């Protein structure tokens, strides 16, 4: 089902934060529609890898190619546009605007893309319903439970029908039941839409929702063993 040409590929990424090297030559490939989990201990460079792949951070060395484009050759404006149209982002928390209602938060990416507010809200409502956030559209993120807020964040990430969703510890602040609901919603919807997901987590039970797992060890991808 998956094509042989990867949708997103990273080659020998190097990135330092001051004196500490977060990435020391990490490479990976993400195929269209695939759910890939990147796991590793805290400080292994997982988040930095996601930031490089999503074009949020420019690596010191190495390259990221997305659908035939080299991310490091793109302008900041084009990268921002790419993140708005082709990518969706979900973090542990903080990606929703605290003052906007759940519905407006989900409608925002569509409005940024130029949709009229009314149309954006209609579509946003559909997506909230898809993620099981019912009757909460007028609430602000602070008034929702953690699980509902994360499902709203997923709706916001997927509302533009992106090719890739980057999820950095999306269940990091949730209990296991809420975490299960969020992950089920993410994997089902991504499967239906054919969206690829790059999932960063330190939790093996969350990583088990993915089709494949890569382990990051001290800034490099650990050698993979094929399961017997």
């Amino acid at each position, binding site marked *: 089902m998956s094509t042989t040409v990867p949708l997103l590929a990273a080659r020998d990424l190097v990135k330092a934060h001051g004196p500490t090297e977060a990435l020391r030559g990490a490479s990976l490939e993400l195929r269209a529609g695939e759910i890939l989990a990147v796991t590793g201990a805290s400080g292994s460079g997982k988040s930095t890898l996601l930031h490089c792949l999503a074009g949020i951070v420019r690596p010191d060395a190495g390259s990221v190619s997305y659908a035939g484009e080299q991310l490091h050759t793109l302008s900041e404006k084009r990268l*921002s546009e790419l993140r708005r149209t082709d990518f969706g982002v979900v973090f542990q928390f903080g990606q929703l605007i605290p003052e906007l209602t759940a519905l*407006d938060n989900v409608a925002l990416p569509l409005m940024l893309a130029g949709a009229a507010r009314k149309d954006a809200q209609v579509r946003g409502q559909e997506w909230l319903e898809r993620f099981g956030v019912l009757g909460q559209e007028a609430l602000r993120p602070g008034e929702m439970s953690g699980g509902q807020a994360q499902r709203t964040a997923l709706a916001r990430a997927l509302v533009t029908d992106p090719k890739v969703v980057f999820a950095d510890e999306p269940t990091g602040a949730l209990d296991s039941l809420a975490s299960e609901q969020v992950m089920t919603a993410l994997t089902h919807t991504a499967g239906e839409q054919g969206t690829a997901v790059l999932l960063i987590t330190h939790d093996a039970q969350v990583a088990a929702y993915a089709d494949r797992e890569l382990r990051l060890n001290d800034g490099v991808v650990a050698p993979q063993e094929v399961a017997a």
Partner: protein
Amino acid sequence: MTTYTERVSTQGRLGTDLRLAWLLTRGSDRREGWRALLTAVGAALATGLGLVVAALLPLTGQHHVPVGYGMLDQPGTRIGVIAALLMLLIPVLGFLGQCARIGAVHRERRLAALRLAGASPGQVRRIAALESGLACLAGSAVATVVSVPTLLRMWHRPDPLVWAVMAVVAVLVPVLGVVVSVLALRRLVASPLGRLRRERPAEGPGRLFRVATALLGLLVVYVVTTPFHDVPFEFALTPVTVFCLCLLVGAVAVWLTGASARQLGEGLSARAKSPALLIAAERLRDDPWAAARTHAAVLLVTVAGSGFLGIRQVLLSALRSREHHYADEIAEIEGGLNLTGLAILAALALVLTALAVGTAESVATRRRGLAAQSAAGVPYSVLARATLLETALPLAPALAVAGLGGLTISVWYGSIASEHGTPDAPYMALLAPVLAYAACLLAAATSLPLLRRSLRPAELRYA
């Protein structure tokens, strides 16, 4: 057996609190230092103004004063100078209030942590009061140390009353600083969790604000009606009246900002078509009184500035219409008025600095969320427009009221002055709000570089 705590608590409590206050101020980041410095500057200005008024008040009849373009020689013009100085006190007080807000979130978190660590409510209140009190004391001390020799050089044997009033002013300013900070923290110290959770937006102005506004209103009504009371010191009260009027109009403008912000936010957020306007309007709706708090000082200065421009125009045109009477004085008075204008400009600069710091503060507090928005593809331009709109939207109606208030004060002053001549219509009063509006937008725009820096992905790493 006594516990360790019991043994420690018998040793000077105030000393411990003072040491803690000092350690906390020193150990925290630069913003805290900024607050202390700006508070001290504000206190020094307030004390300085108070001291000059204290020196002028006991003067009666004609004197030769070597400063102030001869404006201080005659009782009539002296009263005008006192009025101008009192009016300058308004922005300085507003500035002091604004200083208390710098790093507020950070400080409240710190004090709540102190409560969690076991400090009693009283102790936290003392520590907080000591922090601002010390800054005010430093400012007031500097102002007093500079003022006393200056006064002695000009006036060899000052009235004992002058010393008394000056001493009161020098002590009163730090005491006021302590009181204000205790009042500002009264909600926090009740709960060790403080506002660590979601900051609950204030419901509206406190009882203190409403009582003060009501008292001001009553005072103004009383003073305005003095001609009908048959009280002899009718004209002597004019500067005080102008001062009170300015405070009153300022208070009304502040109240109006808060009261209109919710409706403004609701109306705009329902109709908003652009993302920037939507974000700004929703932030306004979420915490309508935040704008009122941030802009209070600006509004007060605008009222003062508007009143000043109007009065200046009225006064000069009244004098010019009878130039043969006042030919010598016009230049002097104009010089004095220009001096006051400069002072008000300085006040405006002060307040705009405070506004810029406040906007920057708001950006800095939200930096993680802003970085997340940027990572999700929200363009910088949208976030920048939202930040500017957040200042621009609530200020528009409030500044209009402030300008109208200033105009009213000028017209009223003009009606008094018309006994001495035929003054122009004080349309200059309307210039102040327009200028203030433009200046505010510029001040808010100074936080944009900080906004750009806050969008760096490195900010995503901090929770």
